[in-house]
């Protein structure tokens, strides 16, 4: 092998030069990226996937001249993990009820100045004092939905109680539950007559034992694709979000959705401004745009969830408005509960879930 000394000075100089260039590029690039976040003509939005209208971002840019940097997250924990070490540069986020409460307690959210969001007046009164954010000071309600039972009409009669998935072997081997510890245990607690946000070890243990007993009749715990199992014929009864079941109902007439009489867990998402947002003005403009009646209705007609914006309902597709799977009837909403942060008790839920999985 040739001696390294024979390479000649130009090889070494090339290595030195390229190394220096790489270092300079990384620093310079970082500066460019940080600068790009705080431009006057941009807003950085962080949202769930498929949770905005087809035309929303375009109409916003056209009407205000502000470009939208739109990023996606798959679940709330992913979003929360990014904010653990400070705001990475987002102006608007869309967390759900218990996550809003968690972020308020961790001092991560800006108080919403309603004078800068004139369209706040469009919001339905029922959403203005939620348990996770008293007085609705840190969020602007966006959309809401429920967890219910998707089922195949030809094989399953309309389930009117959670007993069908929690306490009976009628459809043994054809049931799938969500793979979410909080939601499943909350519904089991509600079935047993307790609060969905119980922090009592005995009540959580009772819910855990109920599920361990039922486990042999379940086919699987699915993270988010229960509706795919339903439409593929692997299961006939599935606990799922209403929007997901609606999606497959559009493809297969034999499927339907029902919320049992004991009530369910209702989730609400809200628009929030995290502390340290680089483009505060643009954030308010974006939130105001999204809550405009027509813009909000266009979103509702794209994503088929229920909007918290009363003024928008005038323009929402009547098929959705009259669909009890989307806009739950008031008497069912009265029996529903929302998830709130349970603080230290989250460990109890996690241990109960581990015990259920390992049983």
């Amino acid at each position, binding site marked *: *092998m040739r*001696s*390294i*000394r024979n390479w000649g000075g130009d090889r070494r100089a090339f*290595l030195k030069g390229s190394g220096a260039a790489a270092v300079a590029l990384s620093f310079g690039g970082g500066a460019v990226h940080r600068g790009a976040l705080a431009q006057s003509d941009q807003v950085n939005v962080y949202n769930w996937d498929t949770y905005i209208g087809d035309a929303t971002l375009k109409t916003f840019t056209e009407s205000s001249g502000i470009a939208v940097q739109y990023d996606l997250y798959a*679940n709330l*924990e*992913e979003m*929360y*993990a990014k904010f*653990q070490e400070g705001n990475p540069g987002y102006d608007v986020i869309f967390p759900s009820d218990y996550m809003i409460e*968690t972020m308020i*307690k*961790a001092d991560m959210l800006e108080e919403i100045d309603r004078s800068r969001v004139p369209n706040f007046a469009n919001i339905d009164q029922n959403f203005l004092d939620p348990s996770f954010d008293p007085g609705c000071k840190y969020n602007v309600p966006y959309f809401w939905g429920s967890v219910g039972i998707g089922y195949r009409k030809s094989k399953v009669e309309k389930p009117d109680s959670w007993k069908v998935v929690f306490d009976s072997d009628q459809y043994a*081997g054809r049931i799938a539950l969500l*793979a*979410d*510890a*909080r939601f499943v245990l909350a519904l089991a607690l509600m079935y047993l007559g307790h609060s969905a946000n119980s922090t009592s070890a005995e009540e959580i243990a009772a819910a855990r034992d109920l599920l361990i007993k039922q*486990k042999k009749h*379940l*086919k*699987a*715990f699915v*993270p988010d694709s229960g509706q795919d199992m339903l439409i*593929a*014929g*692997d299961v006939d009864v599935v606990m799922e979000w209403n929007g997901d079941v609606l999606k497959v109902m559009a493809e297969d007439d034999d499927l339907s959705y029902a919320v049992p009489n004991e009530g369910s867990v209702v989730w609400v998402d809200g628009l929030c401004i995290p502390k340290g947002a680089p483009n505060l003005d643009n954030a308010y403009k974006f939130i105001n745009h999204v809550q405009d009646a027509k813009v909000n209705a266009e979103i509702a007609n794209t994503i088929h969830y229920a909007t918290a914006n009363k003024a928008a309902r005038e323009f929402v597709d009547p098929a959705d408005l009259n669909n009890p799977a989307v806009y739950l009837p008031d008497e069912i909403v009265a029996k529903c509960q929302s998830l709130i*942060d349970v*603080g*230290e008790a*989250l*460990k109890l*839920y*996690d*241990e109960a*879930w*581990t*015990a259920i*999985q*390992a*049983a």
Partner: protein
Amino acid sequence: MESWRRNKLAFAILTLPPSAWLVVFFTLPLVIVWLYSFAERGPQGQILLAFTFANYDRALEWIHLSIIWKSVWIAAITTTLCFVIGFPLAMGIAFAPRRFKNPLLLLVVLPFWTNLLIRTYAWIAVLRTRGFLNFGLEWLHDQVAGALALVGLSDLLGPFQPLELLYNQYAVIIGLVYVHLPFLVLPVYATLEKLDKAYLEAALDLGAGQWRMLWTVTIPLALPGIVSGCLLVSILSLGSFLTPDLLGGTDSAMIGNLIARQFSSSRDWPFGAALSFLLLYATFLILWVRAAQAGRSTASEAA
């Protein structure tokens, strides 16, 4: 080749980038996570820097150890199946005519170029109740029933019952074996390739049959590659969480799922870190035992 001692500056320049990369992106994060395993969890799931063994105490509870034990068991089954399927495959490629070797290797490596998630979803499409495997079996069933009907035994078979192949332990093992097979085939192939074929010819000349040659000559000589491959497959399958999550049923939770959950919905990073390091300590122990064994055997050979 020149000794690195004679040109320390050149050696330093060449090894600095990979070493720096390794330290910054591997060692440093590992140390950070190790420190987390001694930390405490705040009420909203924040990480409070502290020094406590509470996480390890919790990780050593029986319920978590039972999950670890089940995962070890599944990893062992996966490794055995990978060996049974992969060793003949590696032998076939190593002893194939020269012009077939590269295409055959390519066929083994090609699935790697597809994302793991997509490959796992593909198995769902194959194994589920209305999946390709059951479609094939249903077609077979109909053909046989049709043939029987011709003979007049039309009701012998009865209606077709699809096999429940998905959402249970079997599907998880099929998925794991499929994903980790190349990890066993490639090291074993590399070892067999470097094997001096003269040993095998000598064994045959001295009167050994094919099977005897396999057990007493080929496998012992290929042992380093086999051990590397098996170690790789067992360590990788021990930590898998995607496959049990997608293909498994209600009793398929592995330690990987438990750890992943701590870093997402349970927001208990210190506990997740403690569980991960429990696995890491066990892995280090195994590797240290193997290294000590290898050291002893080379020492005894040199003696």
